[in-house]
């Protein structure tokens, strides 16, 4: 084999760009196009007539269907249904579809069965320009460059490039500058929760007493006062909480969080620490909380730590207690940023957030 490759060196240098399959000496010759076989419709007028009839029928079918679609638009009231589909949708759609399909199938059938199917041959030419053309092109560019008098004027070149490079900034900076609103990314740090903010049911806003929260139940919670607030969706996106109650003996709590729960009731941010989906699936037996988006699984009985999936951090816990009137309330805001990680999230966690900043 090595002999073989030495004797018949294949030149691939592109000197003849179309020579693929030609330089090897020991090759079979291309046998050329096979003999053309005629179709039935080429040989008998009756066959051709039959094809013509089929094509006409397809066009007529298309015509009728298109008319049917228009009729369907007018005759069917919006609430009329056929089976589970609205009659209007179905009739217009089928009219349009069969109308189009009829034309298409007719045209393709015509092309395949009636139009000449004798194969034709075109020659290819290499993409490359011939040497004379290339020389002319280079000369043209040289002439143009000479005419521009740019060749020995570096300052002019520099000035041109600088001006063109800087000019778009006057467009791009205002565009990008405005895109981010107030750019106050510290808003990620805090939510509506704060000392004494009552826990309310999502979505109706009803307040919650601890005795309503039975062991094993799971509650979707929002801060009282969220509904009707100014930036409702933005606040809700950060403040949603999932609350469960379990037997206090099943609960493992870190010493510094010992008073964050209320008689087995724990509240955690519902925003996944992976990429922010609502963590909504609670499994009562295992106390596992599963994010339906990417299956990060958190153990609610043990600080909502990650037990499986792509999240790294535990869900932030909302410290809760019960106020004088017997409603569940937050002791404070979350002690860390909720939701997915950002570059600076650890920095925020150290910073105390003043009420003025939040009110702002």
């Amino acid at each position, binding site marked *: 084999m090595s002999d073989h490759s030495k004797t018949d060196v294949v030149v691939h240098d592109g000197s003849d760009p179309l020579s693929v399959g030609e330089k090897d000496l020991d090759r079979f010759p291309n046998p050329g196009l096979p003999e053309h076989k005629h179709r039935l419709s080429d040989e008998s007028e009756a066959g051709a007539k039959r094809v013509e009839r089929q094509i006409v029928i397809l066009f007529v079918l298309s015509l009728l269907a298109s008319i049917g679609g228009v009729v369907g638009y007018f005759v069917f009231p919006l609430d009329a249904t056929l089976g589970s589909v609205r009659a209007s949708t179905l009739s217009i759609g089928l009219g349009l579809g069969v109308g189009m399909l009829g034309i298409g199938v007719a045209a393709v059938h015509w092309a395949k069965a009636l139009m000449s199917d004798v194969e034709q041959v*075109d020659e290819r030419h290499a993409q490359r320009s011939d040497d004379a053309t290339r020389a002319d092109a280079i000369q043209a560019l040289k002439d143009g460059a000479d005419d521009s008098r740019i060749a020995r004027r570096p300052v002019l070149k520099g000035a041109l490039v600088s001006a063109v490079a800087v000019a778009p900034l006057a467009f791009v900076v205002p565009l990008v500058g405005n895109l981010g609103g107030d750019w106050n990314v510290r808003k990620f740090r805090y939510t509506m929760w704060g000392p004494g903010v009552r826990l309310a049911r999502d979505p109706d806003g009803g307040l919650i007493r601890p005795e309503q929260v039975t062991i094993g139940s799971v509650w979707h919670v929002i801060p009282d006062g969220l509904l009707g607030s100014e930036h409702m*969706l933005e606040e809700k996106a950060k403040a949603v909480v999932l609350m469960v109650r379990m037997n206090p003996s099943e609960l493992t709590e870190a010493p510094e969080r010992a008073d964050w729960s209320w008689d087995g009731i724990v509240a955690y941010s519902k925003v996944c620490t992976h990429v922010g989906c609502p963590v909504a699936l609670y499994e009562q037996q295992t106390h596992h909380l599963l994010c339906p988006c990417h299956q990060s699984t958190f153990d609610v009985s043990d600080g909502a730590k990650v037990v499986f999936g792509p999240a790294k951090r535990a869900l932030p816990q909302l410290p809760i207690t019960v106020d004088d009137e017997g409603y569940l309330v937050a002791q404070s805001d979350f002690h860390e940023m909720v939701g997915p990680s*950002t570059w600076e999230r650890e920095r925020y966690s150290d910073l105390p957030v003043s009420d003025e900043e939040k009110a702002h």
Partner: protein
Amino acid sequence: MSTTTPLAKAAGGTADFFDTRVGAGKMVKEFARKVFPDHWSFLLGEIALYSFVVLLLTGTFLTMFFVPSMTEVHYPEDALPVAMRGVEMSEAFASTLNMSFHVRGGLLMRQIHHWAALLFMASIVTHMMRVFFTGAFRKPRELNWVVGFTILILGLAAGFTGYSLPDDVLSGNGLRITDGVVKSIPVIGSYMSFMIFGGEFPGTEIIPRLFTAHILLVPALILALIAVHLVLIVVHKHTQYPGPGRSNRNVVGYPLFPVYVAKAGGFFFVVFGVLAIMGATLAINSVWAYGPYDPSPVGAGAQPDWYMLFLEGSLRLMPGAPEFVIAGYTLSLNVLIPAVVVPGVLFTALAVYPFLEAWATGDKREHHVLDRPRNVPTRTGVGVAILTAFIILVLAGSNDILATHFNLSINSITWVFRFLFFAGPVIAFIVTKRLCLALQRRDRELVLHGHETGRVVRFASGEYIEVHQPLTDHERWLLVGHEPVRPLEIGPGENERGVARPAYKKAVRRSKVSNFFFADRVEPVTPSELAASHGHGEHDEIESAESNEGLLTNASTRG
């Protein structure tokens, strides 16, 4: 012109009008009878083109009724559907409901639009597979591959921006995932999130912004690139499959007018017709069943559109461990790797592949005759490996559906896919490459021995053989017409005077890549090999099967 009938006279007049103003005659002469080759796989790109036209048409219909606004409204008490009456929602969602229930044909157009988007992406991907596996991306078409690749990326952008517009709870959670991924970008993540949403998620700006991207920026870019794509097809002339009479210097097929006007034009109507029937009968994205966006609820078992599933799967497979805090700053590799690095590697590999292969072959010639995938085993193997990785990610994006349908543990499924993501492509590469080599050996055997006839003959000596019927020239050409590609050979590292050759290390690297591609190979039968196999006389069929072995591959010696 000696025209007689009024119609012919009018046609002549029109032709003269255009020819004397824009030189139409020259164009018609050049293009009317241009020859295009015929093959079903060339239709895949056409499906993409036509579904894009359908997207433009139905999309225009939808813009007449869609309100790209996040202003909160209460859905009217007298409007359909009943379940949504009085519900608080954005105008975007309300207008989507309105066009689905109160505009005749509105739901139909929404559904055609959505199906057309899915088909657009599917046909781009399959078209790209056809181009890849047949080597249609080779010189001079590398740039057109890059153009097509860019259209694929823009198609993803179009699908993503459009999917989010109805502002329903499913697409809203999709946007929230996007927000989470963006936030993980080092240093600027938080600011990128603010830039996209105009403040905190979800804000009131994202729908109008996505709308502008979806109906203006992205489609304009796609349209422009489609134009470039088509012009380059004309400039290069279409590739053709190998066959008798077809060579690198010609193109064999049918003329544009009338055959392709009818076939390709007709095919547009076929694609439109099929999509319209799908839109009429197959419900898709019934957003009123999900409800308007609310940051709290989420549907279990929710799936993005298929072309986004691989990203979803990538996010799902990644374990959470590699999130690090370095000097007080958080680096979320558990998000960056699956959402940025994995697709980045996948797409970069696709985009640069033609240049990589050209470098490995050292071949500077033009290639207009397509490869049979078996004749390029390494490329075919690489392609199948990439597809395998993609499919595993798609399946991983459906792991919850797999778990509930097949009653399996989601944790085990995820672990299996984590393993398969690495092992699957390697196995697929090896198996595919070996299958290709085996198919080539089969081709060789067929050329050398001919067809089995089932006719057994006994010689006077008492020996039995089966009579084989030699291939005709036309049959044989398909199996022997391709040119074998051998690894690049590099000379010694020093010249005759013992001086180290410059750039020798680069040459060694190149030769390694070239060996990876072409060291294992089966070369087509040459006339002398065929003659030799016949030269053995009446026992040729049996003996050539043995001598054949030595000719197949020198892979083991080359290491």
